[in-house]
């Protein structure tokens, strides 16, 4: 069946597009949507309903359509699009859905992006009101953005064939668009839906840039773009959606909104069927009836629920052989895949108490319905504008003025074109003035030849009849019976009824059904709609793909990758990496055939026996300067920093105000008024923020300035008994002797020809130096150290070996041995907690009851009785060698566990209740199905006397 008219509509009949729907090969034309092409081919039944499996067709012509859900299969699978919003392209493959879509199994190859835009006036909707609002604001010199979800401007004018000022309305539209496009500072975006309206003029809009190109979409162009628009003033010219009237069996394909049929006719040159009954409560459907009749559709009957038909329009209908039955309603339909008959009867009582008389049956293949218009107030409501019920329109409308959001056109409930345009002009002027511009060059109001200007209709939500077949939400299969069950169950709130019936929760979010549901509820409860709170309009206005929202922040760009200056060397030498915060740190450097343990044992052994080095550049480094720097650090650290002598280094611990350890590191005193603080890799930014917070908000009187210098320095710990020899070889100007260069001191010198600061600190217990050079020279110095150490078998090591070496010495790692419940005392670091200082952050919390319990969890070492057994990190510790029934009392957990080359056995660190008192005790660690006996020891297991520190 071909229902395409030979002429008319904005389609290109000279070009044929081939597409497949439900396996059928069909054709359409450029300018078509999938829906219009299907209708042109006589296809009304698109899919089936989610719950009852009833056939579903096309109800509306735009994004408010509740039923025409399709799955795109090619070019790339995309679920749950409306046939009415899919622009047709050659090769499109789609199928109708039963309420659920299917995700592709392959990754989406398309690109997505986002763009920020700032403007004075944003106009949403390029219908007559929006166009004039935009042009008015643009002529004032304001920066204007005009967005519209359609592929061309015109709005409701696209769906009618009307003349403005005696010429086709399309010409009037084209002139305005042309002027807008040629005005500097104006951006017109088609295929762009404003879907979210947030605080301070922040509006999100989705632009579909290449969807309509199908297979021809260039891979290099982002398929969809999220516009993040920051506007001073917004004009919402979002139009109105026609709503249906609910009646029995109102869900059959072939039953559509009158305005939709008119749009398909005028915009796409498609007839909705061959014989149409029109059912209306207002004037606007008469135009659809007349237009269709003039296009060759047999329109036997207009059923008007109002007691009297509008005289002038009725006369026009009579002239075209259309019978008008006032005071009548459609009470039901027949048909299988498509409507075949409509039942018509007088509406005895317009309040909807019952239908008088026996229905007449009228044969038809199309029923066009109009129950009035719902202004699109979604964005206004998202902007937190209050809504009010308008009893004349039977819908919610703008209920208050907002200072930066104006509503114009049929979005206000106004249906007369000239009035809509006037509102657009006024809104454009007001928006321009509000942003400091002076309107100039007033846009004249056009004169329309539209027949349908009368706005008052009858508010009728439903026709009494078979309630369980009277569908309120066609997509959710929710009926009048469901609504009445909900109110009968005791529910009063629309939100409850929405949830009970699921009305308004489907893909269309109740655009055409929500108002009707509210009306039926109010009738059922005998309350005034004006007293009912409408359910909230939530973003997004129409659905938005996840990928569009993720934009470019995927893969590598999901989160920045930070690498050190020496990173390329690590990569070239086969390092495996560990993510620490955003940093990539070498984890270990396996040689062929080595696993983690083998590599780490080798790296540890080489370091303890000769020399190793690692890339420590990721450690946070904060330069703290000012005459009060010492005083400031005394408050931040648990120990005293102000007494540190220039040239010396001290280890320090920081706590939160709750007394729990938050970070640790070394502090070196660079000068009288200058310290360099190091932090853990992951906490660098947090600690800088922490310092700034205290400085700025509590102690602004202190003369202290902090800045991050983490990335300025490449930091290379050179570790092991041969480290002194290696350093001496590359730093000939430095006296490396123990006497001249003591532990916990630093020297500025030259290393491998590069100015360097060398710190004698050790995180392994070995003789060690930390060499700091500007990051620019980091790789060169690293390579020089490798060369100088070659004769000693110098071995690069990663974080895992670093962890083992420090664990053998009982040094905790913040975040591994601690979890925000651990104090310095728990870590056995009372020595690092000043007794002299009157106060420091966290000190007061140490005096709380919980901190003084003797059974706190404390850091200890654990030695498995069987020295070959490696305890899994994260294992729990129990007291007995048999497990009682759960819940089992746990004493603590294993924080770190390694095989140790130096100890010739496995060992672990653990937090254990009363740990310090338990040294020497045997405890048990459940591992799989067994209990592993372990001996509790001091946390320092290697070189307790510190003999190796000085080489």
């Amino acid at each position, binding site marked *: 069946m071909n229902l395409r008219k030979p002429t008319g509509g904005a389609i290109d009949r000279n070009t044929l597009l081939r597409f497949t729907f439900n396996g059928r090969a069909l054709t359409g034309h450029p300018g078509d949507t999938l829906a219009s092409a299907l209708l042109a081919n006589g296809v009304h039944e698109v899919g089936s309903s989610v719950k009852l499996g009833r056939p579903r067709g096309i109800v509306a012509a735009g994004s408010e359509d509740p039923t025409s859900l399709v799955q795109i299969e090619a070019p790339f699978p995309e679920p749950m699009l409306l046939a009415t919003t899919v622009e047709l392209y050659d090769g499109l493959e789609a199928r109708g859905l039963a309420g659920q879509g299917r995700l592709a199994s392959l990754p989406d190859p398309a690109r997505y992006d986002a763009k920020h835009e700032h403007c004075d006036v944003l106009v949403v909707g390029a219908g007559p009101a929006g166009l004039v609002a935009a042009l008015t604001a643009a002529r004032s010199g304001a920066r204007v953005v005009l967005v519209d979800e359609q592929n061309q401007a015109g709005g409701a004018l696209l769906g009618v064939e009307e003349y403005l000022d005696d010429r086709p309305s399309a010409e009037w539209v084209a002139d305005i668009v042309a002027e807008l496009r040629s005005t500097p500072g104006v951006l017109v975006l088609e295929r762009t839906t404003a879907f979210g309206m947030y605080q301070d003029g922040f509006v999100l809009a989705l632009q579909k840039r290449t969807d309509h190109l199908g297979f021809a979409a260039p891979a290099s162009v982002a398929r969809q773009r999220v516009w993040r628009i920051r506007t001073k003033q917004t004009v919402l010219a979002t139009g109105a959606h026609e709503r249906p009237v609910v009646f029995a069996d109102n869900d059959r394909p072939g039953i559509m909104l009158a305005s939709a049929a008119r749009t398909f006719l005028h915009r796409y040159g498609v007839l909705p069927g061959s014989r149409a009954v029109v059912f209306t409560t207002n004037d606007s459907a008469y135009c659809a009836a007349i237009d269709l009749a003039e296009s060759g559709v047999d329109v036997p009957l207009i059923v008007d629920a109002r007691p009297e038909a509008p005289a002038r329009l009725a006369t026009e209908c009579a002239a075209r052989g259309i019978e008008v039955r006032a005071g009548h309603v459609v009470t039901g339909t027949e048909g299988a895949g498509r409507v075949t008959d409509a039942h018509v009867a007088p509406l005895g009582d317009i309040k909807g108490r019952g239908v008088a008389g026996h229905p007449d049956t009228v044969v038809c293949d199309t029923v066009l319905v109009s129950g009035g218009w719902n202004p699109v107030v979604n964005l206004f409501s998202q902007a937190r504008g209050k809504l009010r019920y308008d009893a004349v329109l039977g819908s919610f409308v703008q209920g208050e003025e907002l200072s930066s959001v104006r509503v114009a056109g049929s979005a206000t409930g106004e249906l007369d074109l000239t009035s809509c345009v006037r509102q657009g002009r006024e809104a454009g002027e007001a928006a321009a003035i509000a942003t400091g511009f002076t309107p100039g060059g007033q846009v004249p109001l056009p004169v329309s030849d539209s027949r349908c200007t009368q706005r008052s209709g009858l508010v009728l939500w439903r026709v009494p009849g078979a309630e369980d077949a009277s569908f309120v939400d066609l997509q959710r299969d929710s009926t009048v019976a469901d609504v009445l069950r909900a109110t009968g169950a*005791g529910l009063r709130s629309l939100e409850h009824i929405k949830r009970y019936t699921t009305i308004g929760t489907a893909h269309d979010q109740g655009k055409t059904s929500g108002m009707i549901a509210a009306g039926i509820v109010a009738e059922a409860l005998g309350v005034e709609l004006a007293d009912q709170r409408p359910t909230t309009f*939530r973003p997004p206005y129409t*659905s938005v*793909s*996840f990928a569009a929202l993720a934009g470019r922040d995927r893969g590598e760009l999901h*989160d920045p990758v930070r690498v050190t200056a020496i990173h390329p060397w690590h990569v070239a030498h086969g390092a495996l990496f560990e993510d620490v915060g955003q940093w990539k740190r070498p984890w270990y450097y396996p040689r062929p055939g080595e696993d983690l343990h083998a590599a780490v044992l080798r790296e540890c052994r080489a370091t303890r026996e000769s020399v190793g080095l690692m890339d420590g550049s990721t450690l946070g480094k904060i330069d703290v300067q000012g005459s009060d720097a010492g005083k400031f650090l005394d408050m931040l650290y648990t120990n005293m920093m102000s007494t540190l002598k220039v040239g010396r280094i001290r280890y320090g611990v920081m706590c939160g105000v709750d*007394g729990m350890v938050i970070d640790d590191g070394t502090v070196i005193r660079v000068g009288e008024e200058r310290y360099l603080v190091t932090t853990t890799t992951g906490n660098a930014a947090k600690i800088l923020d922490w310092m700034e917070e205290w400085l700025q908000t509590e102690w602004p009187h202190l003369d202290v300035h902090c800045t991050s210098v983490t990335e300025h320095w490449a930091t290379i710990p050179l570790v092991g008994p041969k480290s002194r020899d290696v350093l001496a070889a590359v730093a000939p100007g430095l006296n490396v002797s123990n006497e001249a260069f003591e532990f916990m001191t630093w020297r500025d010198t030259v290393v491998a020809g590069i100015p360097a600061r060398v710190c004698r600190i050790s995180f392994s217990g070995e003789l060690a130096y930390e060499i700091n050079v500007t990051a620019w020279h980091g790789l060169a110095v690293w390579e020089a150290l490798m060369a100088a150490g070659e004769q000693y078998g110098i071995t690069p090591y990663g974080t895992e070996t670093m962890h083992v070496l420090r664990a053998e010495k009982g040094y905790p790692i913040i975040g591994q041995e601690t979890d925000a*419940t651990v104090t310095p005392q728990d870590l056995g670091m009372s020595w690092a907690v000043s007794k002299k200082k009157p106060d420091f952050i966290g000190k007061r919390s140490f005096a709380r009851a919980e901190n003084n319990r003797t059974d706190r969890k404390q850091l200890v070492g654990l030695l498995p009785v069987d020295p070959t057994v490696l305890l899994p990190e994260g294992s729990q510790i129990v007291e007995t060698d048999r497990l009682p029934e*759960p819940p089992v009392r746990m004493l603590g957990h294993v924080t770190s566990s390694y095989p140790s080359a130096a100890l010739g056995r496995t060992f672990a660190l653990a937090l254990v209740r009363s740990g310090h008192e338990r040294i020497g005790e045997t405890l048990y660690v459940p591992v799989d199905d067994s209990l592993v006996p372990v001996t509790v020891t001091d946390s320092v297991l290697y070189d307790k006397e510190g003999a190796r520190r000085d080489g």
Partner: protein
Amino acid sequence: MTSSVQPPGAHLPEHPDFLWENPEPKASYDVVVVGGGGHGLATAYYLAKVHGITNVAVLEKGWLAGGNMARNTTIIRSNYLWDESSGIYEHSLKLWEGLEEDLGYPILFDQRGVLNLAHSLQDVRDSVRRVNANRLNGIDAEWVDPAGVKEICPIVNVSQDVRYPVLGATYQPRAGIAKHDYVAWGYARAAHAMGVDLIQNCEVTGMETSGGRITAVETSRGRIAAGKVALCAAGHSSVLAKMVGLRLPLASHPLQALVSELLEPVHPTVVMSNAVHVYVSQAHKGELVMGAGIDSYNGYGQRGSFHIIEQQMSAALELFPIFARAHLLRTWAGIVDVSPDASPIVGLTPVGGLYLNCGWGTGGFKATPGVGDCFAHTIAHDKPHAFNEPFTLERFTTGALVDEHGAAAVAH
């Protein structure tokens, strides 16, 4: 899952024909529960059922279960780290397992398991620690490697060649989801049937005390005398407690969530990731339900900022590349009351007869039956139940926190 003959929505249960009446408030009740969300309704239910206290009113300022109960992502699990937390959450999970029968209401409780993903070596250590603690506490838990993750949820991207690869996950098979509205309505219906008055559109505007004891609440529908008053007001707890001069260590934050359109089943479990900040399940009808972190600032507006949603989407696509062309259908926000240690405050207050249940942050839904039971016990006996005994207000003074912030488990 969906049968091939039935349409995808057909298997959902029907609601009962009657839920509850809408009475006028009486002048006086033995117990007034403030807040008609999940916790308030469950508390009233257990007061009536377990303790025989039926002269009870639940006062709700809006519509029943219209706050966080209507806004959460319905994840139910008990795999918390600390003994105190796992105690009350496991108690809750056990009640969930019999709740449908108990309430005589189809709550769609579906034990499809939860995966908590680990993305760093420290995540792995923390996860293993939690699994071991869970097991010793009698909670089902296992550690699964990336291949195991893939087996449980084939759509998770376990490639090691991504920004934050999945290094494994904890898995709690008994965890799952339920239909939040149905849970609330099940409690409401059952409580109503036992004589509890459910009073909607009734906002508490003040409280009366006498001799250090609560005597009545002032409401938008008049004064209501009360023997005892139990606060179950989540994000609004601070405002209510202040009416009797009680300060709470809470901050109310927006928490956003979202759903997609209905999709064929692709996601058989629940996946949570702390490191990339997202949690996802697929609800019974087929929509993907997702949540993320809280918005940073205090807020009572039930509205968050959109960049949080965008970040959540990029995180979701890292884990689930096939979601690229799923569509965001609806977003919303609740108000969560976050305590300093991310654990709740449930128990007595310095005001006689006034009881406090708050601070659940993002974890309140899963606790509904458990805390309802324990809180009812606390109210009935004027003494905490063993499971809520650790969750006192005094712990912030003594320092005996239950710090689930520091614990690896995503605290929601």
